[in-house]
């Protein structure tokens, strides 16, 4: 089996021997364990940036129904366009991910773990199953883990089936329960009413691996990196028009310009940060920082060279969302259709400025009125491209529309 190695920089995870993080964590009491994560200032690596320790505290305090248990779910439904860091983590550092799940289980008192692996990564399943079997033999999963009486925890893998929206945590839980992957209303939040209505922590693959790194190296080492509100290192999935696409590790808070210098994409005219649901940052704003307080991201960086047609980019994203909207709420189901229709009009050069304004208002309505993050963020790319590249979008000639598909 040939492994696709996308790593372009050494990663912190390289220096962490399997087992070290878990061993360090199991020496602590459950409250000290969460306090350590809190001291690291770790925020969720999936994109939303919710403080991990807060999530764990809520789940630790939540009550379980009679005969049920708490759950730790690893969100490996990495579907955001331009994101592939979780594939690298699951290929190269799976033990650290599973350790992170075990640490989370210890913290909140969970006995079952589920790795929800996207259907497109089906080829990762056999090695992951083998790794789980190895951990069970080594006593790192199963009963009385780390010789701690009563600490029982095991992990199973469940496959997704090709639905982007299942990366949203409540849709993921619906999918685990055998339902259509339609997001739930929140509250209640999964930390008290999650899988099978029990307290459930849903963390991203990278968050869990990072937890292991925090326990192996100490929370201070982690917090020393990054900015005040965005601590630590982060993986970035870089693709598009640059010399060396791949996975990079940088401390949070670096500017887009600095990142582009490192990946060989300094002549870019724009960068899409955060995937299809993220924002398009034009060259004049390359001094903005990749951090939760500025441009937040799950790590997807797509570089657009000077020759790219930005309307074609917006069209690609909108086709994606029209396909992936679950259809449950009207703003998202109808809005994505209408925006794509509008983009096709723009492409044909048949859209008035007044109608374009209407489309932008529709986008803002979708941001406000959609039920989940998908519809709330799907207009972002279109709106930022219209804002920053109006001269490319308006007044196109019919002939120009006949380019490649």
């Amino acid at each position, binding site marked *: *089996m*040939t*492994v*696709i190695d*996308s790593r372009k920089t050494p990663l912190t995870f390289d220096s962490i021997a399997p087992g070290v993080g878990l061993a360090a964590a199991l020496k602590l009491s459950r409250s000290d364990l969460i306090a350590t994560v809190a001291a690291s200032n770790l925020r969720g690596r999936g994109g939303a940036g919710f403080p991990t320790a807060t999530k764990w505290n809520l789940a630790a305090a939540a009550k379980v129904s009679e005969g049920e248990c708490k759950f730790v779910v690893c969100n490996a439904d*990495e*579907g*955001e*366009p*331009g*994101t*592939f860091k*979780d*594939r690298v983590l699951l290929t190269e550092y799976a033990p650290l991910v599973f350790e992170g799940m075990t640490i989370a289980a210890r913290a909140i008192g969970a006995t079952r773990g589920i790795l929800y692996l*996207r*259907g*497109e*990564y*089906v*080829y990762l399943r056999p090695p992951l199953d083998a790794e789980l079997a190895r951990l069970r033999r080594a006593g790192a999963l199963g009963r009385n883990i780390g010789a701690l009486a009563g600490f029982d925890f095991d992990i199973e893998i*469940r*496959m*997704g*089936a*090709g*639905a*982007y929206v299942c990366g949203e945590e409540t849709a993921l839980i619906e*999918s*685990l*329960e*055998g*339902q*259509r*992957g339609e997001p739930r209303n929140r509250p209640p939040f999964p930390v008290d009413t999650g899988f*099978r209505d029990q307290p459930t922590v849903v963390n991203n693959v990278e968050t869990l691996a990072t937890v292991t790194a925090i326990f192996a190296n100490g929370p201070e080492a982690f917090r020393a990196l990054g900015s005040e509100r965005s601590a630590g290192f982060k993986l970035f*999935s*870089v*693709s*598009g*028009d640059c010399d060396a*696409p*791949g*996975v990079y590790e940088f401390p949070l808070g670096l500017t887009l310009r600095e990142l582009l210098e490192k990946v060989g994409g300094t002549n870019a005219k724009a960068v*899409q940060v955060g995937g*299809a649901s993220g924002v398009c940052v034009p060259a004049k704003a390359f001094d903005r920082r990749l951090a939760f307080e500025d441009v937040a991201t799950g790590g997807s960086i*797509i570089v*657009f060279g000077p020759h*790219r047609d930005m309307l074609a*980019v917006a069209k*690609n*994203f909108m*086709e*994606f969302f029209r*396909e*992936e909207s*679950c259809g449950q709420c009207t703003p998202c189901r109808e809005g994505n259709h209408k925006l794509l229709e509008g983009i096709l009009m723009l492409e044909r050069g048949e859209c008035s400025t007044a109608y374009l304004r209407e489309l932008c208002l529709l986008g803002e309505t979708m941001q406000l009125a959609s039920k989940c993050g998908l519809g709330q963020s799907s207009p972002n790319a279109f709106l930022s491209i219209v804002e920053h590249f109006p001269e490319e979008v308006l007044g196109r000639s019919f002939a120009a529309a006949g380019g*490649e*598909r």
Partner: protein
Amino acid sequence: MLVGSQQKLQDDIRALVERHGRTRDALLPILQDLQAAQSCVPDFAMQVVADELGLHPAEVYGVVSFYAFLDHRPRGRFVMRLCRTISCELARTAPVARQLENELGIAFGETTRDGRFTLEWAACLGLCDQGPALLVNDRVYTKVTPDRVHAIVEDCRKVFGAHAAQPSAPSAPVHPAAHPQPALAAAKG
């Protein structure tokens, strides 16, 4: 469908239900195994699954129709999924798509008449630094160019021939392993 094969499918589904459990959260794994073994989840199977789990068949249909990797229509032995997301598009997916259509004689969303190949678009395959990316069952092809498409299709035909030559036990339970899939091989760009 012949009565004999219906009976067999019914038995296979019962075996799956035994393995995964009779609860609602077992529904997706059951359907995924059925999809892998049958290349689809036929209407009759949805009814049997619904009966076994105590659900309305419409509930099962709702799930099958929601997920891109489940289908009630038969798919080919090889499902070719070409990534159409932006990073792959920037790396020029369009000529690869065209050539796939030319080699297979079908359009995207269609299955060849011999039931061997289905051609589909995929949302991001998570191989954005290696595009254009193509997933054939569980085999990954990266940095695909139009001139490599013929060889990729021929690879599949060879596997199909080898597979068809193997005698299969008629009473084997439905299990993904019953259909050996080509191992992951990331072909070099």
